[in-house]
């Protein structure tokens, strides 16, 4: 185990210099990846496919407003504990959308979170704010 860890650390050190050297083209490519995932999030946000009753996230949250992703994790007074953004997304999928929870790592959840974050860009992170 210790030998394996050393090997990993060694490999990281060996590739560190290369990892830092990314180009404008890389930045554009990565931004495009984010953009396409956020776009898929927007598509899901405005579609009925996450629920069973035809209701979409965007019906109550135009442009993902009133979702406050910058405040999570935060104390969610209705749950009585600190919750994460994806838990609230699932709450909405279960209740107004009458659907089934997404796994937190589900690519659709990633897309929804990416879209919300994109619409909220420029707003400072304020975890815990109510």
């Amino acid at each position, binding site marked *: 185990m210790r030998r394996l860890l050393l090997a990993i650390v060694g490999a990281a050190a060996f590739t560190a210099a290369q990892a830092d050297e990314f180009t404008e083209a890389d930045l554009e490519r990565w931004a495009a990846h984010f953009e396409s995932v956020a776009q898929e999030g927007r598509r899901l946000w405005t579609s009925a496919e996450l629920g069973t009753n*035809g209701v979409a996230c965007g019906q109550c949250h135009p442009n993902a407003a009133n979702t406050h992703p910058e405040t999570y994790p935060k104390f969610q007074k209705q749950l009585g504990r600190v919750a994460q953004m994806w838990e609230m997304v699932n709450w909405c999928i279960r209740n107004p959308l009458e659907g089934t929870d997404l796994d937190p790592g589900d690519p659709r959840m990633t897309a929804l979170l990416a879209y919300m974050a994109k*619409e909220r860009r420029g707003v400072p992170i304020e975890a815990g704010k109510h």
Partner: protein
Amino acid sequence: MKIDRRGFLKRSGAAAAASVLPVSLVKLAFGQEQSAGQQDFTFAYISDSHIQQIRGAQFVRNWDQGLKRAVAEANLLEPAPDFVVFGGDLAQMGTKAELDHGAEFLSALRYPLHCVMGEHDYYLDLGEYWSELFGDQWYSFDHKGVHFVVLNSVLTYDEWTFERWESPERRMQEMAGLDNPNGSPFMVGERQREWLRNDLANVPRTTPIVVLSHSPLQKIYKGWNFWTEDAEEVQAILAPFEKVTVLYGHVHQIQYNQIGSIAFHSVMATAWPWPYPSTYAQSGAYVPVMTVPMNRADPFNERDATGWQFIDVHTGRAAVHYTLYDNKNRTVAYNAATGRPEDLEYQHPARRIPPQAHY
């Protein structure tokens, strides 16, 4: 008969239930300026129910409950309102099934009904079936000294309506998304403005005018169609009258404003609340500066941030009494000293409470 809000609720006999009504009760009072033919009266205002079909006989329960409750509670009001206004967006996708289902709920009302066209009722068949059920899309009527005008303010450019989309269903779908960039700005249009000029031509300038529209008849945020493209032209037609009140739906939130002699008040939705445009970080939009926002909605309480208000037009000016779920009631009244509507409790910035901070 002068009825203040407290007296009204005492008399209602359903005061506890009434405190959570998603109904807008409108009271008109003429006070000392009351002249022949004018007498106090009330009407209820229900709006934005967005009845949404799932399939067959299944409809979204949440939105159904909002309208069903509004109608049931409106029927308990005492003293009885003279009539009810439904402020538009009865349906979500404008289908016969949705309009029929909504009309079924509304048919339980014990009072005469006046309906306003919303974009969700209109853009499937351009209001044809809605008109079969509810009558004209714009009209006026006089009631106890007040001249009421109903407008279809959700029309838009002909090219968008008639040429852009391959099917009526697609057209409805594109207009149904509030934030859809493929949508198109609402307008009253020249034909109706001409009708309005003629309709008002013989109305004395001192007669209180109440205009019922779905969209705001003022420009707030184009991106969500909190907007009427020809708002200035419509306002110019109304401006010569001394006391004008515009009551509008569509925005699912408390807004109020004063432009010249025209007071603007929004009414609440029975379906769900909407964020204020100022909270969309990319919009750069503002709500009318004098609006103290409604309290932020608790999403775990599905009827929260819907509510009811009644409005009295004392000496022709509006005082709007909002009753909100799980929140303290609000009154927004015309202040003769400042010449604009003001919240009686929260207007001063120092009086506002944390739930009124929207971000």
